[in-house]
């Protein structure tokens, strides 16, 4: 197991990495990082952000705008927010970012759950899908 590095070039070592839970189950990708201003003015890492609501703004341009617009349109909540995983849950990094909470408890796949309940499950024959 590799622990945390002394330094991270965030774009190189963290962005777009797979997040995995203690059972090595995939959770999501690191689509952006949330930075919070501390009292001393330094910017500290506060969370990993996931999903189109994080990737779209980072991608920018027309593609990024479309990504966010479609994601907002398909989300049931009025003001959808990207998936958010507290930075304190990160245990170590290697080629992936490992977190201490299980995927089902992190609830960052809200869009997937909504799409499964409202779209996939309504397709005839979906009940037999694996």
């Amino acid at each position: 197991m590799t622990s945390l590095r002394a330094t991270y070039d965030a774009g190189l070592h963290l962005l777009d990495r797979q997040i995995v839970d203690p059972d090595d189950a995939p959770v999501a990708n690191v689509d952006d990082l949330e930075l919070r201003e501390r009292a001393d003015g330094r910017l500290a890492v506060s969370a990993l952000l996931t999903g189109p609501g994080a990737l779209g703004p980072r991608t920018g341009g027309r593609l990024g705008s479309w990504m966010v617009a479609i994601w907002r349109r398909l989300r049931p909540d009025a003001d959808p927010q990207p998936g958010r995983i507290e930075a304190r849950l990160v245990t170590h990094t290697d080629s992936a970012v490992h977190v201490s909470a299980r995927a089902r408890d992190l609830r960052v796949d809200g869009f997937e759950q909504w799409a499964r309940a409202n779209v996939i499950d309504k397709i005839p024959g979906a009940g037999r899908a694996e």
Partner: protein
Amino acid sequence: MPSESAATGAVHRLGELLGAEVVLPDGTKAGQVNDVRLAGGPGLQDYVVDGFVVRARGEGAFLGYDRRAVLGPWLLRALVRAANRDARYVRWRAVRRIDWEAKLVVVERLDPLEDERAPA
């Protein structure tokens, strides 16, 4: 306080910094933020922005081969590093101001790009 947002606890995204224009106090353009180096620990929540990797507009990251701690074919590393010999690093203490709206970072000076530190 390098940020224009005076309120402590303001929340930003890393993506807002990537690609930001880097300028010297006299307005001279120095390049764009190509990556953000984090340092600290022990937990990821204790890491803070240590500085910015700055490159001339349009240059890519070359999969990290331009940063010396990254292992790779020596010929590829040599070629990429030669092409990026003007890459620079801005330490946090040299950051004078961040204008998040304009995606602009005003810096006092730029230093040579340093090696990343080895894993703890």
